[in-house]
């Protein structure tokens, strides 16, 4: 299991006496803002990847930017590693505490500071929930576009750290496309403003580096997000297929027809049946796969596109095509998709969620291959994915109480990720590398590329104190796993059947 850090393969810091850590940090924080009792730290021992657990030396809960600066400056001087945490909903162990280090919770930064409808922008603190932004601006006719499935709970600071996507990013973009400016505190306590109120910035695109940097470069203390006008109307098509590959081919046909759906999602038989039992969405339970295709915009244009896409889906081999009759039915169709993960509890006691992205053209073949991999490892699999952008979420089903089951699930997951790289894709589309996929990074990137990542990290954090052991593997780790030679899919994998 990767929740134990290794001094040689990850990072090592001179231990700091807990009493000294407390004596230094406590005066810098508000009353009750430093937690060192084990029972008080328990809620912070894992994030959404609950299989990985670890306790820090202390948890800090600052309330002001000045406190964040003071805490980071002090940790920098003492050489104490720091892991920043938002709402803790991440699925890759990015907020897993580092033993002996500080866990910095940004939960108390939960205020929407300003909404400027004329600039179509809002300034928010990092602990504000993703959905809370859309809710706060809905009466002005706006929404905040990125909508990860966890949007009810996840924080915008975490979204920036992970470059979160969501169901609607095919049309509206990822976090990196929907933020204008960031206030960031670097490890030495310096407050830096990145981006501006204008649409571009002088110098290097530091916003590009910060977004998705998984807490390795700095701590975000304020985010200026773009607000998007709500479309006039949104309508949803549900298409059923009796063959998964035919459904996957229909996706390419929609994209080739020059339509940009607001969302284009796919579920295979096991996933849609579990979701239907869980959410009663109205899915045809005898289908081998369903596609959900949302189109939004001006009313007459949407009506025309709905007709065109419906015809296209029928021609592509859909056995049934239904357009949600009203808003209630549209929401119900979506509820099934958004509830797909919790629904897996009906199929198996535990599931392991994979997050690779592949070029869309590989979809039919990769799906077949995933079936073979899971069969070879003796684990079940249900597929839920953002078909429009090729982002797969195979859910590997296992039982943690059964001996060797978790290891089998992890082995199957690792092979699926390597398959994604082999067809020209990536090991993570939106969940981040975190701790979970640290070894697979060695598959996707060469030694020289990983060295550049370390140099970029050192430009912001020369001591390597922010979120050590995450996102970017050490070269020692990659050497240990012997996978450095297989990257970019340029070389054949002996252990993956090719097609």
């Amino acid at each position, binding site marked *: 299991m990767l929740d134990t850090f290794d001094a040689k393969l990850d990072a090592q810091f001179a231990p700091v006496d807990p009493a000294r850590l407390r004596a230094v940090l406590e005066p810098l924080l508000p009353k009750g803002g430093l937690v060192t009792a084990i029972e008080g730290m328990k809620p912070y021992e894992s994030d959404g990847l609950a299989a990985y657990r670890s306790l820090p030396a202390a948890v800090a809960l600052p309330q002001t930017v000045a406190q964040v600066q003071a805490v980071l400056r002090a940790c920098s001087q003492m050489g104490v590693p720091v892991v920043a945490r938002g709402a803790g909903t991440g699925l890759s162990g990015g907020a897993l505490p580092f033993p002996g280090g500080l866990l910095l919770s940004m939960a108390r930064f939960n205020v929407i500071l300003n909404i400027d409808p004329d600039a179509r922008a809002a300034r928010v603190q990092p602990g504000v929930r993703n959905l809370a932004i859309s809710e706060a601006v809905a009466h*002005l006719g706006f929404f905040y576009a990125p909508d990860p499935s966890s949007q009810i709970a996840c924080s915008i600071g975490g979204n920036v750290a992970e470059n979160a996507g969501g169901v609607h990013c095919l049309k509206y973009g990822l976090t990196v496309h929907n933020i204008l400016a960031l206030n960031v505190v670097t490890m030495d306590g310096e407050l830096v403003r990145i981006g501006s109120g204008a649409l*571009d910035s002088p110098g290097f*695109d530091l916003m590009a580096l910060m977004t998705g940097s998984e807490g390795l470069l700095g701590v975000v203390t304020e985010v200026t997000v773009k607000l998007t006008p709500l479309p006039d109307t949104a309508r949803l098509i549900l298409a059923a297929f009796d063959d998964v590959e035919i459904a996957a081919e229909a996706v390419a046909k929609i994209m080739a027809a020059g339509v940009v759906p607001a969302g284009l999602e796919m579920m295979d038989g096991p996933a849609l049946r579990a979701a239907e039992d869980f959410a009663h969405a109205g899915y045809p339970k005898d289908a081998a796969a369903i596609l959900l295709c949302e189109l939004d915009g001006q009313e007459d244009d949407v009506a025309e596109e709905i007709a065109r896409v419906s015809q296209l889906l029928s021609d592509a081999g859909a056995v049934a095509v239904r357009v949600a009759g009203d808003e209630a039915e549209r929401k119900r169709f979506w509820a099934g998709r958004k509830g797909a993960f919790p629904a897996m509890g009906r199929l198996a006691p535990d599931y392991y969620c994979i997050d690779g992205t592949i070029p869309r053209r590989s979809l039919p073949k990769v799906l077949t291959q995933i079936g073979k991999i899971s069969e070879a490892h003796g684990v079940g699999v249900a597929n839920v994915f953002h078909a429009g952008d090729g982002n797969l979420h195979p859910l590997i089903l296992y039982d943690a109480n059964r001996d060797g089951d978790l290891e089998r699930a992890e082995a199957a997951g690792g092979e699926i990720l390597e398959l994604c790289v082999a067809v020209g894709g990536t090991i993570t589309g939106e969940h981040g590398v975190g701790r979970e996929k640290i070894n697979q990074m060695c598959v996707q990137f060469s030694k020289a590329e990983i060295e550049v990542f370390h140099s970029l990290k050192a430009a912001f954090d020369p001591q390597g104190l922010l979120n050590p052991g995450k996102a970017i593997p050490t070269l020692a780790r990659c050497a240990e796993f012997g996978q450095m030679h297989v990257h970019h899919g340029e070389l054949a994998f002996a252990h993956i059947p090719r097609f």
Partner: protein
Amino acid sequence: MPTSLDSRGDLTEALAAQVRVASDNQVPLCIQGGGTRAFYGRKAIGQTLDLTGHSGVIHYDPSEMVITARAGTPLVEIEALLAAQNQMLAFEPPSFGSGGTLGGAAATGLSGPRRPFTGALRDYVLGARILDGRGEVLRFGGTVFKNVAGFDAFRLMAGAQGCLGVILDVSLRVVPKPRVQTSLVLEMPGEAAQSWLTGLMRRPLPLSGAFHDGERLHLRLSGGEAAVAVTTRQLGGEVESLDVWSSIGSVTHPALTGRPVMWRIAVPQNAAPSELAGCPWDWAGGVRWLQAESVDPAIWDLAARWDGHATVWRGPKDQVFQPLKPPVFKLHQRIKAAMDPAGIFNPGRMYEGL
């Protein structure tokens, strides 16, 4: 059908060798494509590293909506290839002459009039292969839209003006062409136009261009038949030729020519600095063009006060870009040192000492 694997113009090995020699001997390199964007930025002094021979489309599959091409590929060639499949580059890269290359477009990161409505070049870069300052070939990102493995080093290359690496090839996300486009012109003073437009942009209208030439407002609408027809009726004005948008994008519109110095001042779209009243603007007010006889350094302060930045677009090239605050400049120097330890790529092109 996908276009694929044209290896005729692949000069990766030769370019890498040149960079390694330059790195070993600490010889600065001036990276050059078509040279059409050389005016943008300070003068870079160094041996020319010519990218024009490194050209050709590597892969293009219209159903995948991604094109990958070598840096020296002429932009016009890419645009023609996309147009044949009814697709286009959403950020409408400005053309400063037919010799402009994909690498030059990516390195300068400039986007055209469509920018406030459909995003910037950096938003559509999915991956890049580059040479770093040691002459190593590195690949960051890829050809898929959702990809969060590693830092977005490919996006960092967009707009870095070659100071961090030599772009070898770039993968760009492309979009379908809008079904309908039309351009409208309305007689309206700049300030009135700006506040009207601010209100319009709070609604989901099919706008794809908003330029004021000092006297008249030019609006472009792109989208589905119904949305464009309905909005055209609502907005009024006269229909004009769509050709005006190429002169706006290439900054050759008559309103943008004349005096020896011209500033490009990027500010929040609804900012209203009285000093800039009457100036032509693009990007729905997000870019103001100010002409002058000489460079007045007070403009940097003005831009900063309005939460934006200024660029000397035309004129003397001593200081061209907005001065950076010390902690930000320090980060720039460290990032430069990380990617280009010998400091050989386009030294001084963006800032003195970078």
